[in-house]
Every structure is written in structure tokens, then in C-alpha cells.
């Protein structure tokens, strides 16, 4: 499964479709956003991919806690790292987008804050892993933190918009907020092509890292 090429070629095809449609396709003309709505294919799909990777990392952490198979811990780590990469890219594309539509790159928007908190949590996960040297202890402690932090992250993402709404009254009517503003043309590209394209690319990157790490470990142990 890891070595087959069909899904890798599929991810490239989907991404080519996304890029072509993103830059050349028709988009609805929304006030304030105008052409920048094209960023939807990149920025929002990266955030979807990031959440998918964090959930996969969580699943592998739980699997590790139940079975003790160190490979699951390796998977959890690599998926968390890929999630961080996509999160940073998503944040960056979001800041570029905000700079042109909202006037400033960072405006304490609830979603920006939620993404920043998620990134801080997973950076802390990496720091925690680095501070432990014994393999089993590291895997177990990191897995416990992964599960704890994820289940604390979900209420955070739910609570922060509820608090911020009444602090920033203008934030709610902003058209850049939700994907309810896109029309069917964009939806047809977004769901079938953009989100799976970026996700499969991330899976490809992760599996390459996992295979490299396994080769490295095998070489050390042989």
C-alpha cells in the first residue's frame, strides 16, 4: 500500500487540477474578497488537511497506548509533524489573505487564534518528545499528551469563537469567514480536488518520512 504509486499520481493530478482551476477558473465576485477568494483552494484545504493529520496522529497515539507497538508511535509523530507543516502553511496563506482583505495580517480573529493555539500545542508535543531519551517512556508520555491535548483542543476551538464574537462585533459579518459564501463551481473543485489533493500530498510526505526512519532504525539495529 505504501509503495503503490496510484494514489501518489492521483494526488499530483488533483493538485494540478486545483492549481489550474484556482488561477484560471471562474469564481464568484464577492465584495471585499474579489479575486482573492481563489485562496480558498489553498488556505482552507490546508487547514482541513491539518485537522485530518492531527486526528490521524491522535488515532495512532491511542493505538500505541492500547497495543504498545512502537511503530504506531512513529506514525503518530510523523503525522503530527506533517500536520504542523500544513498548519504553518495554512496560517501563512491566511495571513497573506488577511493582509489584502482585512487590512492587516493578524487581527485576533478567532480562527487565527484557534490555529495558533493548535500549533503551540503540537510544538509543545515535539519539545516534550525531545526531552525524553528512553524510547518507550518517550512514546508513552508523548501519546498521553497527544490524547489529552487533543481533547482539550476541541472545546478550545468551540469556545474561542463564542467569546470573541462579542468582543469584535464587526467580525461576524465578514465574508471571508465561512465557506457558505462559495458557489457550486468552487464547491466542485474544493471538495473533490483541493482537499483530497493536499491531504494525499501530506500522506505521501509522511509515509516517505516513516519509511526513511524505518530504514534508519533497521540500519542501526542490524
Amino acid at each position, binding site marked *: 500500500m505504501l509503495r503503490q504509486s496510484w494514489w501518489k499520481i492521483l494526488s499530483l493530478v488533483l493538485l494540478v487540477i486545483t492549481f489550474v482551476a484556482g488561477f484560471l477558473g471562474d469564481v464568484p465576485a464577492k465584495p471585499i474578497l474579489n479575486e482573492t477568494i481563489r485562496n480558498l483552494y489553498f488556505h482552507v484545504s490546508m487547514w482541513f488537511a491539518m485537522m485530518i493529520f492531527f486526528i490521524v496522529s491522535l488515532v495512532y497515539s491511542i493505538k500505541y497506548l492500547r497495543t504498545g507497538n512502537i511503530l504506531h508511535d512513529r506514525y503518530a509523530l510523523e503525522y503530527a509533524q506533517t500536520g504542523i507543516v500544513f498548519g504553518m502553511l495554512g496560517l501563512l496563506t491566511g495571513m497573506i489573505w488577511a493582509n489584502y482583505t482585512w487590512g492587516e495580517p493578524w487581527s485576533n480573529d478567532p480562527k487565527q487564534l484557534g490555529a495558533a493555539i493548535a500549533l503551540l500545542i503540537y510544538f509543545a508535543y515535539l*519539545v516534550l518528545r525531545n*526531552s525524553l531519551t528512553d524510547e518507550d517512556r518517550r512514546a508513552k508520555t508523548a501519546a498521553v499528551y497527544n490524547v*489529552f491535548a487533543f*481533547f482539550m483542543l476541541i*472545546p*478550545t476551538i468551540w*469556545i474561542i469563537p463564542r*467569546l470573541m464574537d462579542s468582543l469584535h462585533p464587526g467580525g461576524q459579518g465578514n465574508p471571508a469567514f465561512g465557506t457558505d459564501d462559495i458557489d457550486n463551481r468552487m464547491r466542485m473543485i474544493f471538495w473533490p480536488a483541493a482537499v483530497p489533493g493536499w491531504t494525499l500530498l501530506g500522506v505521501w510526505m509522511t509515509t516517505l518520512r516513516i519509511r526513511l526512519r524505518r530504514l534508519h532504525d533497521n540500519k542501526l539495529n542490524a
Partner: protein
Amino acid sequence: MKSLQHITELFKKDVLLEIRQQYTFYGIVLYVASTIFVLYLAMGQPEAIVWNGLFWMIQLFICINAVAKSFLQESRGRMLYFYSIAGPRDFILSKLLFNSILMVAMSLVSLIIFQLLLGNPLENFLKFVGIVCLGGWSLSLVFTFLAAIAARAQQNAAMMAILGFPLIIPQILLLMRISNTAFAQVVQGGLWQIVLLLIGLDILVIVLAVILFPFLWKD
């Protein structure tokens, strides 16, 4: 109930250790007093919103220091002894209970010192005391579990801060929201909703801690 008996015994052990070796308790009180004193020298007597913000930030740092020692004191031999006589669930529940009470006590002490030094912009003192108790309890629950995690990696206080600050953000924001109501005579509509939300978050933390601590326990 055997479980309740275990928890009470472990809790009494912690209290007894505290009373005999008063280093922890007085150490934290001194930390509280020094920090607030330095804050007073730096800020003078700020107005209500700044007062509130500073108060909760100080609570955060006090909590980290108060709770950090709870898992440090036990040597490996003693941990093995506890493992054999009481389960991990009872152990973590007794630690959560002890740290909650310690932190609430520290919060009240710091509130008194805050009022002495940084002035008293509070309108509704009792309400604020209630919020402070709730806040101290919430913070101590999260940081106790993080202390259990950080105890496995050796750099404890710094590690707890790194792990803890992102996770504590929703609770701090909620606490600041409701504590703002104690400064003026306004009627806050969703006050009880927010309190229930906080209590819900605390129950979530306790449940997660009880489920996950047994994995940390086996060394």
C-alpha cells in the same frame, strides 16, 4: 468503599507531609508575596481591567509553582509501594484533590495580598471570591495532570509551562470574562452559562486524567 478509603488515606499522607515539611506551603506563600510585591513596584495601583488581567496571570504562575512539586517528592521506591497498595486511579484522584485545595488556599492568599498592595477596585467581593475559588480549582486540575506528564521528563517547571499555556487559554479567557462582572454593577446575562461551561471543562479534565494516568503510572 475501598476506593474512597484509599483516596482519603493518600490525601491524608499528602497533608501530613505538608504539615511536617512546611517548605512547600511557606515556599509558595513567599513566592506569591514576592511576585505580587514586584508587580506592585512595577505597576502601582492599576485600574480595574488591568488589575483583573494581572491577577489571573499571577494565578497562572502561582499554580505552576504550587503544583510542580506534587510529583517531584515521591521517590521511585515509594511510587512502587503506592502502586502495589492503591491503584493509579485513586492516586491521581487524591493528587487532584490535594492540589485543588492547595491552589484554592493560595488563590485566596494572593487575593488578599493583591488587595493590600494593588488596591481594591472590586465592587462585589463575595462574587469575586467565588470566581477565584473556581479559577484556582480549574487551573490546578489541568496543571496537576501536566505535572504528572512533566515528571517523566526531567525539566519540570519549564516543561509544565510549555505544555500548559496553550491548554489553559479557554479557561483563562472564560475566567476573565466572568470576573469582569465583579468590578461593576452590570448584570451579566450569560454568567451562569459560563460558570457551567467552566465546570464542564473541569469535569472533562478529571475524566481525561483518570483515563490516561494509568498509562503514565506503569514505568
